[in-house]
């Protein structure tokens, strides 16, 4: 603003505060205080969602802890309505209990883990895990504290014969510090080791797509090695015994890859390495960077490789960052990502849809986006008791965690929409989901999952991710199409067969009358000839086809699995006549020999 703009008559505004007086009001905002005002950022926007987020954060932590310790997880999730809602449709008070058989937590760590925001083991490393920021469980506790005033109760035991501690915690929201309200030793003989989290909160219990039960059922799909007991607020007890005794391979922690590093992160890494040269930092702290590559990067960036790392700044830093992004370098090691695997994906899917008619799954080969390795997997269950005329159900997973909110904003949903399912014998309205008795699973496993927000509700649209998802879905689709076609073929054959079988007795009786032979004697050759003209199917209607080598219609990338409900390998079945001749000869066979009656 210049003086020219002001009318000469305008009164000069009165100064309201001085820099000094303003400084007196400026102070640090604690993370806890920030959360209190911005709870929606972490998934506590409404009472129903708060309940889900609380359960989810606790379960994610339990699973991560069990897997890291090498323990097959056995979880109990219990939701108890403590006080009924004052009137229907109003939130009421619940106690969420999540108990695991994990390694337990050493006593001094308990308060920090559960009652200090942004404290955790997962933020500072690049390793595939469910939780990422170390904010979730303490945020849940804080939410409980804010809505009910009740402390978080943690019980933990680290081994057989050791004491169990029961600690009541509050968060000092101003200082973001844990406040131990009560600390006692208890007898927890149920488990040799494990952790039990109890949070009381004001919440609402909902069913459906975004409900707690849906979350648990989907978690069970993506974690075949998980044994889960769920006690709902109505007192129903659901048991999901584990279907795999195999723990997922431990994900390797990796260093940042040059292609994915952000400028600020690079700056921090360099600044944190006093006494090291730029080249040394590049070699030591990045994955896939050899001394030769480091030399090349420095050359490209016109930076002295022997310059002290903590002195690099300004344009030099930016040039180094640019060079890191451009240098040709190997992809990060794929050992950092752990997919569920094709066979286990199907096992998992069967936990939710045990009566589907067909399952298929695909695990793609590892790929990279922005220096982060990732693996996409897809699986589908088809037919059986799945609803016929409804849009297919999509289950989205990121590092085995179900994503229930914001399907429209998620790259996973988009990948399902973008695949042309009509090519795979399914109906699909334009721009819509396939309408079929089908459930689709897409799992993205990555060291760093790009969520659209900190609430971790939807996967961001990276082209590399979207392409891989579509590839995985198409592979599953191709296998499904082969099944649907062979099923349709089997149905047609069954119809043909019953038609012929309907008329054989009639024809036999007529011929028998003419030739004075018993009807049965004439029926016999007809029934014996029937298999030559009809592909026989078993009772369940699956075509018994000639064996096919390997996987069929399998596109590039990854192994494929395909399992039919009866688990029967496709192939000739004993007791049926010789497999029909090759397709090309079908016409001739069908025509058969004609009988001329006009000689």
């Amino acid at each position, binding site marked *: 603003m210049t003086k020219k703009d002001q009318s000469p008559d305008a009164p000069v505004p009165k100064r309201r505060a001085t820099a000094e007086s303003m400084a007196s009001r400026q102070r640090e905002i604690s993370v806890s205080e920030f959360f209190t005002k911005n709870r929606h950022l972490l998934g506590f926007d409404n009472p129903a969602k708060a309940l889900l987020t609380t359960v989810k954060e606790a379960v994610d932590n339990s699973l991560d802890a069990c897997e890291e310790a090498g323990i097959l997880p056995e979880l109990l999730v219990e939701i108890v309505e403590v006080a009924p809602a004052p009137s229907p449709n109003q939130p009421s008070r619940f106690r969420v209990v999540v108990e695991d058989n994990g390694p337990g937590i050493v006593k001094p760590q308990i308060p920090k883990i559960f009652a200090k925001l942004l404290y955790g083991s997962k933020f500072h490393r690049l390793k595939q895990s469910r939780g990422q920021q170390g904010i979730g469980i303490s945020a849940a506790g804080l939410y409980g504290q804010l809505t009910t005033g009740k402390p978080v109760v943690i019980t933990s035991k680290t081994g057989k014969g050791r004491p169990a501690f029961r600690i009541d915690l509050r968060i000092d929201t101003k200082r973001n510090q844990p406040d131990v309200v009560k600390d006692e030793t208890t007898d927890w003989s149920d488990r040799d080791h494990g952790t039990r989290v109890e949070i009381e909160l004001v919440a609402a219990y909902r069913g459906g797509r975004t409900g707690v039960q849906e979350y648990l059922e989907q978690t069970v799909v993506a974690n075949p090695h998980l044994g889960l007991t769920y006690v709902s607020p109505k007192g129903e007890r659901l048991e999901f015994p584990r279907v795999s005794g195999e723990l997922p391979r431990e994900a390797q922690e990796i260093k940042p890859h040059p292609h994915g590093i952000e400028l600020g992160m690079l700056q921090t890494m360099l600044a944190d390495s006093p006494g090291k040269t730029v080249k040394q930092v590049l070699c030591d702290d990045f994955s896939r960077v050899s001394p030769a590559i480091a030399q090349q990067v420095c050359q490209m960036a016109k930076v002295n490789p022997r310059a002290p790392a903590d002195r690099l700044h300004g344009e030099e830093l930016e040039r180094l960052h640019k060079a890191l992004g451009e240098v040709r370098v190997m992809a990060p090691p794929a050992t950092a990502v752990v997919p569920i695997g094709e066979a286990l994906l199907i096992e998992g899917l069967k936990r939710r849809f045990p009566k589907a008619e067909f399952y298929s799954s695909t695990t793609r080969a590892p790929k990279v986006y922005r220096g982060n390795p990732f693996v996409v997997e897809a699986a589908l269950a088809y037919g059986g008791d799945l609803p016929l005329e409804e849009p297919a159900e999509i289950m989205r997973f990121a590092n085995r965690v179900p994503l229930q909110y914001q399907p429209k904003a998620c790259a996973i949903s988009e990948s399902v929409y973008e695949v042309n399912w009509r090519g795979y014998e399914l109906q699909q309205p334009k721009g819509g989901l396939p309408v079929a008795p089908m459930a689709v699973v897409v799992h993205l496993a990555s060291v760093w999952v790009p969520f659209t927000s900190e609430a971790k509700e939807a996967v961001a649209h990276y082209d590399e991710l979207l392409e891989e998802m579509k590839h995985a879905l198409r592979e599953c689709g191709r296998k499904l199409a082969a099944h649907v076609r062979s099923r349709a073929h089997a149905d047609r054959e069954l*119809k*043909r067969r019953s*038609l*012929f079988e*309907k*008329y054989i*007795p*009639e*024809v036999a*009786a*007529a*011929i028998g*009358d*003419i*030739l*004075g*032979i018993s009807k049965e004697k*004439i029926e016999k*050759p*007809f029934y*014996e*000839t*029937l298999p*030559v*003209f*009809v592909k026989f199917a078993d009772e369940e209607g699956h075509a018994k086809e000639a064996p096919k080598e390997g996987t069929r219609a399998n596109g590039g990338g990854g192994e494929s699995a395909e399992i039919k409900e009866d688990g029967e390998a496709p192939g000739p079945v004993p007791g049926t006549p010789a497999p029909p001749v090759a397709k090309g000869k079908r016409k001739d066979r*069908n*025509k*058969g*020999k*004609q*009988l*001329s*009656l*006009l000689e």
Partner: protein
Amino acid sequence: MATKTAAKRKSERDAVTLGKIQKLAKGVLTEATKGHNPAVEIRTRALSNVSFNERKKIIELGDKTQSREFFNTSMVRKFMQTMLVASKCKTLIDEGKTVSIRQMYYMSKHTLPHSSDNTFEDQTESDPIIEDLEVGIDALREELHLFATRRGSCVGKLVIEDAGDRIDLSRMGRGGWSIPSICEPDVIKFTECKAEFILFVEKDAVFTRLNEDGFWKKHNCILMTTGGQSTRGARRLLQRMSQELKLQSYVLVDNDPWGLYIYSVLKQGSINLAYESMRMAVPNVRFLGMSSYDYAKFKLGPAVQIKLKKEDVARAEQMKAYPWFKDKKWQQEIQELLRNGFKMELDGFLTKSISFITDEYIPKKLRDRDWLT
């Protein structure tokens, strides 16, 4: 099953037919036993498979055949029906009985086990199967002991023997002798003939008119009608009379495409029964009327005009294309019908007087040799 005594009584002709039916059954059984698809070859009864034999002047069935297979979803039902009808015909031959094609429909109709379907749902399903069987095993309908619904009357100066009964066709009263559906020489014999020609009229009412007027007495002829499209029995009878008694036959039909077609069927046979033309066609039959030119010739008034309908025009155009109407005179006749834009009925002569057709029209046409062949 036939008893031995019944078998002995079978005529030689029946034995031949039985052999054909048995050969059909054995062939089917053999093919099935070999693991082949049992099939019956049936000559196609459609315009695409008939030709006009210029020398014999009859419509003949071509050699194109259709294979009716058992192991073929679109054919299996008809295959079953063919076998069923064959077996029932065998029973008829065994028992020495003859039934109508409607009765055959009932004989072979039953409900399929574990189903609400019948072997035949209605007679329109069984009639073509009977014709298929006729061409399939090369047997005549009467040889299969079947007959079609009887239609047609005959009077005139002829004495015949029908199944041993002597019948004087000049003493048949007003109704005339009812023409049986089977008129083969073994049942119908011509004993005494004083007639000089045969007059075939399309309509029963015209037949009655001529009969009442004593036309056949005055002109020494035989008078026949079938009331519309001719039946097999009447056609066979007409052929036998014209061949065996060496009588010229004349046809009197309405002046419309359907009338022309009735004449055409009598003369050279029909498409559907082309395989029977040899036994039924009367190639020298003369078309006496009613011609499109008769309107002017007999000074008929607008009262007799019936406007041609769209389908009449279409049918006339279709007939113009038939090879057996390619003769110039016929092309002119059909062209004249189209140019008139109207059709006429024989009954239209009553606009002149009740017996105009008997007393004036037919005698003049015969006298003037005003006919087409």
